C-alpha cells in the first residue's frame, strides 16, 4: 500500500484536458518535486489531491483509503495540507490570528464542535509554528503589512500548524530573494523530518537541492520520473522541458 496514489486521474475544463489519466505514487517521508512547463497540469494535479478541484474521472487513494470524493476539510483532517501558489493569507488579520485559525483546527479535529480548547495550548501551538518560520516577533502585525517573503513564510506556518502528514507546496519560492530561498530550503528539510512533501517548483536549483525524486509532467501526463540524476540525464525530458 502506498502513501498516496492516483489511478488514471483526469480533469477536463470544457474541451481542455488539464490532467490526462495520471497514475502517480508517493512514498511516505519523501520529498517529491513535480516539474514541467506552464500548463503541464501540475497545479491541477495537486489541486485534485488536496480537494480544491474535483476530478473528472479516476481515483485518489491516501493511506489506502479512497478519498476521491472527500471535501477539502476532510482531507485536511487526514493530514493533506495545501499551501497556495498565490499567497492567500488573511490580509486583515494579525499573524497570530492567521496561524491560530490553522492551529485551532488541528486542536479540535475529531472533537465535538463545542469542545473547549485551552488558551495556553492554542497560544503555544501558534508560537511554535511562528517560531519555525522565524516570525514570532511579528505576531501582532496584520499580515498585509508583512513583506512578500514573510507572507509566504506565514503561509507555511499556517500549514505547519495543521500538523500535515502530506504537505503540498505550490511554487513556494516564487518571488523570494536568494537568501530567502536558502533559508526556505533549510526549512523544508526540517519539515520533511515528520511530513511527506510534494513540491511544485520552477526553480531548478531548489528542485535539485531538495527533491529525492522528480516527476516531470507535460501536456497533462507524466513524462518521466526518477532521481534528480536520472531526470537530468533523460533525453525526453531535456527535449520537452530542460532544453527548451
Amino acid at each position: 500500500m502506498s502513501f498516496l496514489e492516483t489511478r488514471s486521474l483526469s480533469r477536463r475544463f470544457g474541451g481542455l484536458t488539464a490532467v490526462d489519466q495520471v497514475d502517480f505514487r508517493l512514498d511516505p517521508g519523501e520529498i517529491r518535486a513535480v516539474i514541467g512547463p506552464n500548463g503541464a497540469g501540475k497545479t491541477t494535479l495537486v489541486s485534485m489531491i488536496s480537494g480544491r478541484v474535483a476530478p473528472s474521472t479516476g481515483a485518489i487513494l491516501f493511506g489506502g483509503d479512497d478519498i476521491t470524493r472527500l471535501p477539502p476539510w476532510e482531507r485536511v483532517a487526514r493530514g493533506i495540507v495545501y499551501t497556495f501558489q498565490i499567497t492567500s493569507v488573511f490580509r486583515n488579520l494579525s499573524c497570530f490570528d492567521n496561524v491560530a485559525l490553522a492551529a485551532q483546527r488541528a486542536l479540535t479535529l475529531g472533537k465535538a464542535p463545542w469542545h473547549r480548547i485551552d488558551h495556553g495550548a492554542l497560544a503555544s501551538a501558534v508560537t511554535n509554528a511562528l517560531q519555525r518560520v522565524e516570525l514570532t516577533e511579528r505576531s501582532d502585525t496584520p499580515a498585509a503589512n508583512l513583506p512578500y517573503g514573510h507572507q509566504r513564510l506565514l503561509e507555511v506556518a499556517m500549514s505547519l500548524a495543521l500538523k500535515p502528514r502530506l504537505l503540498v507546496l505550490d511554487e513556494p519560492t516564487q518571488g523570494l530573494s536568494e537568501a530567502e530561498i536558502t533559508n526556505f530550503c533549510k526549512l523544508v528539510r526540517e519539515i520533511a523530518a515528520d511530513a511527506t512533501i510534494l513540491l511544485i517548483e520552477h526553480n531548478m536549483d531548489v528542485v535539485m537541492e531538495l527533491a529525492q525524486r522528480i516527476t516531470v509532467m507535460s501536456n497533462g501526463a507524466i513524462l518521466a520520473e526518477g532521481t534528480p540524476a536520472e531526470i537530468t540525464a533523460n533525453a525526453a525530458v531535456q527535449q520537452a522541458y530542460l532544453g527548451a
Partner: protein
Amino acid sequence: MRGPQHRVLALHGSVLALLFLLQFVLPAYHHTNFTSIMVLATYGIGYNILIGYTGLLSLGHAMFFAAGLYAAGLTVHYFNLDPVSAFLFGAVAALAFAAAVGLVALRTTGVSFMIVTMMFSQACFLLILYFNEVTRGDEGIVLTEAARQIGDFSLVNPAVRYNLALALFAIAVALCFILIRSRVGRVLVAIRENEERVKMLGYHTFRYKLLALALSGMLSGAAGAAYALMFGYVGATFASIEYSIYALLWVLLGGSGTILGPIVGALLMFYLVEWTSEVTESYRIVVGAVLVLLTLFFPKGILGTLREKRLRWLP
C-alpha cells in the same frame, strides 16, 4: 487579544452607562424614540453578525425580525402566553426559522445569496398577507395592555420599556463581543476575508455560515419579539423589504463589522429621517441619498472609517 482589552471594555461600558443615564434627562418623546432605537439596533447587531463579520449580504433579514415579532405577538394574542415566555418563544422561533432558511439559501453565494434571501423574505411577507384571517395582514393586531404585564411591571410603562430595551441591547452587544472574540468568530471573519482558504484550512465552512445565520436570525428575531411586546403592535409592514433595507442601511452607515456601528447607524438614520420629515416629508430621498453616498465615499461607514484612520483597536 491583549493590550487594548481595557479600552474596549471601557468604551462599550461607557456607551451602555450613557444610555442608562440618558433616560433621566430625555424628554418623553425622545425617551420613546431611544427605546425603539435600542431595539432596532439589536436587530442591526443581528444583521451585522452576518454581513459585517461573516461577509454574507442578506437582503431579507426582515423575515427574521418578523418571525420573532409574529411568534411572540400571535402567541400572546391567541394563547394568552405571558410576555417573558412569548419573548423567548419569539427568539427560538426565529433561530429555528433562520437555520431552516440557511440550509437552503446558503447553498448559494454572493449575489445569488442576496436575491434568494430577498425572495424568501418576500414570500414570508406574502404569506402573512395570505393568512389574513390569522395575521390581519397590513392592518395588524394590537396587543392589549393586560396581555403586556410582567408581574408588577407593565410594558406600557415607558421606564420599564426603556430599561428592558437597554438590557436587550446590552445582551446583544455582549453576545456579539463574545462571538467575535471566540474561536468561531475568528473562523467567521476568515470566511469573510477568503472562504476558499478557510476550506483548505480544514473547515466545513457551510456549518459556520449556518451557525452565523442562525445566531443572526435569533438576535433579529429577539428584537422583533421585543418590539411586538413593548409597542403592542404586530403588522405586515415589519416583514416588508423596506425593513430588510433599513437593517442594511443602519449597519453600513454605522460601519459594518463594528459592534457599535448598528446603534450609531440606527440613531443617525432615525433622527435624520425625523428631521427631514419635518421639513419636506421625504424620507425616501434621505434613505436613498445616504445609501448612494455611502457606497461612493464611505464604504466602511462611520466607525469603520474611524477604525481605519485612528482607532485600530475598535472591535
